[in-house]
């Protein structure tokens, strides 16, 4: 498997650390109810198809990445910087 890091270019998957679903980016407010935190931390779909998850370019530029990929075909359609995403200033 290869991921194209927006900064470093195409790299073998062993340079990356896998974390989990993109949901981890949507942190509830401090006062949000427990159920919101459950959803944030634990409740996940297991889609056959398109999925967006978080990878860390550990042996490269140390950037966290949002990887859009298909769990059925293994096609990777987009790799974006977490720090550069909509709403997050850089």
């Amino acid at each position, binding site marked *: 498997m290869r991921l194209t890091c927006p900064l470093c270019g195409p790299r*073998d998957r062993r340079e990356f650390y896998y974390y989990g679903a993109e949901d981890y980016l949507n942190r509830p407010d401090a006062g949000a109810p427990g159920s919101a*935190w459950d959803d944030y931390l634990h409740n996940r779909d297991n889609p056959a198809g398109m999925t967006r998850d978080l990878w860390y370019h550990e042996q490269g530029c140390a950037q966290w990445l949002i990887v859009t990929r298909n769990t059925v075909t293994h096609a990777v359609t987009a790799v974006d910087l977490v720090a550069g995403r909509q709403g997050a200033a850089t």
Partner: protein
Amino acid sequence: MRIDGKGIIDRTRQARFRFDGRDYQGFKGDTLASALLANGVRLVGRSFKYHRPRGILTAGSEEPNALVEVIGKTNRTPNVRATVQEVFDGLETRSQNRMGSLKHDLLAVNDLFAPFLSAGFYYKTFMWPRAFWEKLYEPAIRRAAGLGSLSGRHDEGAYEKAWAHADLLVIGAGPAGLMAALVAARAGADVVLADENPVLGGRLIAEGGTLGGEPAAVWVAGVEAELRSLPNVRILTRTTVTGAYDDGTYGALERVGLHKPARPDLPRECFWRIVAPRAILAAGALERPIAFPMNDRPGIMMAGAVRSYLNRFGVAAGKRVTIFASTDSARATARDLVAAGVQVAAIIDPRPDASVVEEVPVHLGAEVIDTRGRHGLRSITVRKGAESFEIETDCLAMSGGWNPTLHLTSHMNVRPRWSEDLAAFVPVEGAVPGLFAAGAANGTMSTHGALTAGKAAAEAALSALGRVAGTVAVPAAEDAPYGHRAIWSVEGRGRAWLDFANDVTTKDIRQAAKESYASVEHMKRYTTQGMAPDQGKNSNVGALAVLADATGRGIPETGTTTFRPPYTPVSIAAMGAGGRGAGFAPQRFLTSDQASRDRGAPMIETGLWYRPGYFPKRGEATWKEACDREVAMVRQAVGVTDVSTLGKIDIQGKDAGRFLDFVYTNTFSTLPVGRVRYGLMLREDGMVLDDGTSARLGETHYLMTTTTAAAGLVMRHLDFVQQAFCADWDLRFISVTESWAQFAVAGPKARALLDSLLEMPIGDLPFMACAAARVGGVEARLFRISFSGEEGFEIAVPTRYGEALFRDLLARAETMGGGPYGMEALNVLRIEKGFITHAEIHGRITAFDIGMEKMVSAKKDCIGKAAAQRPGLWGPEREQLVGLKATGPISAGAHLFRPGFAVERENDQGYVTSVCWSPTLGAWLGQAFLKDGRARHGETIRLVDHLRDIDMACEVCDPVFFDPEGGRMRA
């Protein structure tokens, strides 16, 4: 028998080798198989289950029978294909899977029991009586099972791993592959051409013939010379592409030194990872056997293999050959043999309408129904209509058709498609993105067809790569239609083998179907067909056809199993190349490493770091004596230890304090400049991630310390928090772990020691404070912190001065009754003080569990705060950190029980994480997590460790055993 004037081996270079203790002679370019055949050796192995005598079936890596052990000075490699292993001077080999000699294998008795050893035998037989399993069945099966044997010693051979990147990977250097490589290379594309043979050419070498009016070998040599002259081409011979993986990544195994006597540093094998956006699978086709009765005797071979031995190696596989084939290609084998002067007794062709025009007798509509010859073929029985007759022959060349070598195309779980025309499975385009099959691998069977397909595949690849192909002419070549008729099995009285390696016969498949194992996946597992080292390369399609027939379905409806990587076996040693000894993981060495070793300190691995365990002194018999002395030394005088392994993260910016407030449970934005604070870091799920001290070096400048174990983890975590939640904050951080050498100096005389070398005395630097300092003209940092409970400091200098400072500190300490202390003493000192490490904060521990819930600030949000407050993560049901005190040895990993209760899981009250003998307090001390532990101080608890045979009553107490007020640290 060698045929003069045939073959491409080098007859001027002899190679003496041994097989089963006998000396033989071959030539450079021979495989073990060709050399044995040339020497008239037909019996080379025993089959797996029935221990039937077996010979050489094929001339390639698909060989199921001729598996041998290669014995080197330091290596012994089982299951080596005699058809792949090249001979060299001094090669030592041995047959395997026998008890006694190869000719008189004692386990051949299994063959007599064959009627009982049919499909599912193990499942049915070894069920009862139950008591027999461990004592009788398993040992007996284990002794008899498995092929070959290992030496039991480490493999000391050299192995290599490598990466290659190319625009185009061409798999196979036969006509299609060579043509594809040539077209792509001339257009300037980066090409990797891999072939598992030592020579290029594939079938062009095995079949001979002409290309463009010249001998095929001449054309091959011309193409090879051109390819080798181009800088954009890399040719990997003796290299099998073994797997196709995601995004254009392929695995390949190169046999680097296996055809040479072993030499130091010469890799035996190299495991390649080849990355290419496009690949052309030009791996040719594999000929399939016919399952006729008693078709497994030595001397019964594939027709293509017989041709290959003749044309490539100049070896006649027999003196009087017969052909049993339903393909036109086998006729070419016959003609080549006749032309070379080898007698061909007869051609038996099951097709009623095939040509009879040959120089030898042809029997159309005929089949072989029996064979004779105990250790090698002597004769065959042919049935033609109602009559049957016997033919004397020592070599039967068979051919039931050709299967495209499409294995790589199903490595991503796409099943191949059945072609009625070819009576074979063919690749599905797009099965592996970027991989395109061409030539025989794609069902194009003629030489000219393969050349044309190879060219077209390269042109398509070039176009996809944005390159323009030049004009390359396809040479004139054999272009006959693929003449064949499928024949799978022949009815008769004897057993008819499908899977030679695993001894699976047509009867086994039919029996599986009868017992309802009618799905191909079930049949495979029930009969073990396709599960041998050849992974069904020779038998899969035949077995499917028999299964389809037995279940009254067609082959497409019956379906097929998919092939998985690797195409041929890959040694673990090659995949793990470089991973033994020092190559297992990076080794991180402290600047004090040599100084510690000079003092005889045994080094302990902590993560990747090597740290001194203790510093033995003359007269100390055990590590414990040294450890006790070092603990007392720190408590009474002064000790020095290297703490550079702790992670150090430099954090700067206007928002640095705000950031620390967010990642730590407690507040750092209010920390005065020049002060240090202990911080607790949680994961977002509320569990403790790490702890450590952070110092405020300036208004916008902090230095965070992490534990040794979690340094990388914390960096990753901080990167996530910053990039995900505060990318726009005025803040940057970077690890400075490697830039500073840092030493803890602890004990009542620590201040005096440091004052003797610092340019300015420590003065009134308070506990938990830091300051810039200078030592020997070098800028240093001084921290007043303590992990020992004594008055302690840590002094940091740029790494390049680390060794010098460490040696100087030790020399000074020793004049004061102090010296270095190691990890063992460090651990005792911290347990006496109730300080925790990752033995305690092991990932399932909350701030509440370690009594630090008050450190979670109520005034601000922080990572992990919300989750930490959820039910279940706090309260009396939680196991809480306590101290344990005992009069005898206790152990970490032990579990705790109430006295009087049975030692059962239901009664488990908690577990022990750290223990030590405390020379300071004269007792065994422990840290443990105990249910509602903080309310149970003073209780007696039973500590049980079944592994170490410990059963000890302990007193539950506060985890801080020594100087609970902390007066010594603050002195």
